[in-house]
């Protein structure tokens, strides 16, 4: 059973078996506008919570996406290399950014559930 968590920085995490699939929320993709490039992370990179994992570039600007928890990158969504607009059209589905193996699952406790996130964005 997968659990979905949200961060104040407008990321979502779907956690299953110690692995989190991470993306940005629909609200975030709307704020960024049309994406034209996603700089994907290297497999095997170890990230601490708050490190820049991915850079998403819209027509106008580049924005960092941070690691929401500690862990190691095990997969990047390479389909974004040819079609970055997947993040706009399917932010919480095919537009996922990376998968990471959690190294401190207790960090998930400080994240929001969907109801709390909805309240957060108003």
């Amino acid at each position, binding site marked *: 059973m997968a659990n979905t968590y949200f961060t104040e920085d407008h990321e979502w995490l779907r956690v299953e078996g110690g692995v989190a699939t991470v993306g940005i929320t629909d609200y975030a993709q709307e704020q960024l*506008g049309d994406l*034209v*490039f996603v700089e994907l992370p290297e497999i095997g990179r170890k990230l601490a919570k708050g490190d820049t994992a991915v850079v998403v*570039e819209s027509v106008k600007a580049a924005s960092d996406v941070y690691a929401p928890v500690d862990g190691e990158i095990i997969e990047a969504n390479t389909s974004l290399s040819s079609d970055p607009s997947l993040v706009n059209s399917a932010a919480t589905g095919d537009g996922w950014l990376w998968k990471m193996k959690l190294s401190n699952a207790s960090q998930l406790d400080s994240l929001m559930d969907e109801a709390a996130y909805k309240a957060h964005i108003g």
Partner: protein
Amino acid sequence: MTGEDTKHLPLEDLHNAAGARFGAFAGWSMPLTYPAGVMKEHLHTREHAGLFDISHMKLFAVGGPGAAALLDRACPLDAGALEISQSKYTFFLNEAAGIIDDLIVTRLGDNRFVVVANAGNAAEDEKHLSALAADFDAKVEPLDRVFLAIQGPDAWAALARASIETGSLLFMHGVEPRQNWFMSRSGYTGEDGFEIGLPEADARDLVAKLLQDERVQWVGLAARDSLRLEAGLCLHGQDLTPEIDAASAGLMWAIPKEVRASGHFIGADALRSILERGPSQKRVGLKPDGRQPVRAGAALVDADGNAAGHVTSGGFGPSTGHPVAMGYVSTALVKPGTRLFADVRGTKIPVDVTSLPFTPHRYRKG
């Protein structure tokens, strides 16, 4: 993001109703995008007609027997040689020939001109021009207008349907079609189009009429920037600054030969000596390899890692389908096809020097 001093557009309620997302630019709260998004807004402008609220820009009336002489002092211009209704792209220069602002001057009558200045420099421009006016028999009057741009191949037809005939007006000409209106065939997209300064009540009426036309849609500041960048047009504050001169910027075409040789404009001596020794850097187009945009501020190096210049504007070109940029490089490296590298977060992105514009201009010149 919007502090107390932020200025608001007179038509802000219309942009809100249209679902605009706002952002700060040059002290103004400006519509950045509408629900269609930057990509579609950009392409719609190139295919049909985009409507832009550019009321953050400032119009000045310059009049009086000394008006032409005042402009000839403030700008590298022969204002008296302009035909009535003719517009000219020009600059305010400082004593070092640096560009204080880039402007469009239009002659409306024997002793009457209108100057269109950038939002970010409007206050400084007014101070500068008013101070100079004291030495001439001329008056500088900021105009209180809504300023709209309608740009794209269907712009003229959309205006015609809104009962505004543009038939005989050519690119870089401006007229006063109604009382307190100023309309020029000009713009910042590379497309055929018009810029119209008019009183707020008239503007509301015109916008309502134009938006009834399915060829017309609001376009925000984000697409205005990608359109002008593809068109190779400079943004003051990025591609032009008071530290950059017209020779380095590749804008000497805007300064008539006789004015270069013998004009008495501010900065004339400095510009002449720059021309004599040649600029050390020049503005060029830059085409990054691949899909990753290269942004303003990125350093450029040559194949051996030597400093080559820097990027002043960069982003993605929705019409070109690839990233586009411009910047300044050492004069030895300006040849189209020269391979350079831009530093983007520590990665060296290959970029090729290229001629501008990225998308051909489609002005109506005659």
